[in-house]
């Protein structure tokens, strides 16, 4: 009974403050601003700086949601290797199966931090250069499989063949 009374008085006071002073309001004003200015950011689906432009993700996508967009200025990401294209995902076609994420060579071959994640989760702890330095650690059949999906020179490059 005492607890009940204490809670009731406490609650009455708190809610009075809430009503009069808008105290401890939980509504996120940040989201409110974004919505009212029509600027909810789109999902960040591809981390352009990390991608090596192999085009594997576009090939594995079951719904053809990924198109490879040619870069205006190719970037040299490692000695002798140019990134010429980056993937773009059409989210209305995407089924969020994460095939692309898992098949992206930088993730699926090394099992390290994923540079691309269909759900805006890529914040790799390694730089691309470091990732590229590591030798490949996958069974040969897997590499054969990969060769079907991404250009063979890329696989060679990832294996450390082309330094």
């Amino acid at each position, binding site marked *: 009974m005492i607890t009940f009374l204490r809670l009731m008085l406490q609650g009455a006071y708190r809610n009075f403050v809430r009503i009069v002073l808008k105290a401890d309001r939980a509504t996120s004003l940040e989201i409110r601003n974004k*919505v009212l200015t029509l600027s909810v950011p789109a999902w960040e689906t591809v981390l352009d700086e990390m991608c090596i432009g192999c085009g594997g993700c576009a090939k594995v996508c079951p*719904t053809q949601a990924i198109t490879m967009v040619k870069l205006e200025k190719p970037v040299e990401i490692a000695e002798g290797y140019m990134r010429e294209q980056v993937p773009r995902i059409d989210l209305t*076609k995407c*089924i969020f*199966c994460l095939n692309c994420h898992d098949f992206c060579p930088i993730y699926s071959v090394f099992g390290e931090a994923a540079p691309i994640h269909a759900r805006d989760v890529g914040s790799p702890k390694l730089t691309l250069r470091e990732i590229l330095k590591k030798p490949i650690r996958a069974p040969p059949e897997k590499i054969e499989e990969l060769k079907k999906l991404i250009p063979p020179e890329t696989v060679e490059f990832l294996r450390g063949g082309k330094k």
Partner: protein
Amino acid sequence: MGLKATARKNAIHAMLIYAVGCNGCDIEVLNALLSPRYDLEQYRVLLTWNPREADVLIVTGCVPWQMAEPLKKLYEMVPEPKAVVAVGSCAINGNVFKNMVGEIGINEEIAGPVENIIPVDVKVPGCAPRPEDIIAGAVKGVPKLMEAP
């Protein structure tokens, strides 16, 4: 902006129809509606469960064949003007249930996506979409309501 458009802009009743996905999207929609953090009501969108009262139908899920008929009926019940917001990858393209079939070829259980059954005005992609996407999507349906005769 006439009185009609102003009135339509200032009071929007939204109804959630959960046409079977995985519970993920409908709970996110409820989150947007019920959680004080997102609070859809501040954008003048009020929750209703009555199709007779609704302006915006928020449909989630991939619509199995058993749900197709009820969905169509409910859509017919809503008086004009109305807008349909398809939330989630399930509602837009059937998600894995329609597109990642193993050996059966076509999954006959799914009559969806929602577009196959009722016209869709706004698509909110994601699995599951973030509540702020859902709110932005629901708000995007408003111009259609305002412009309707």
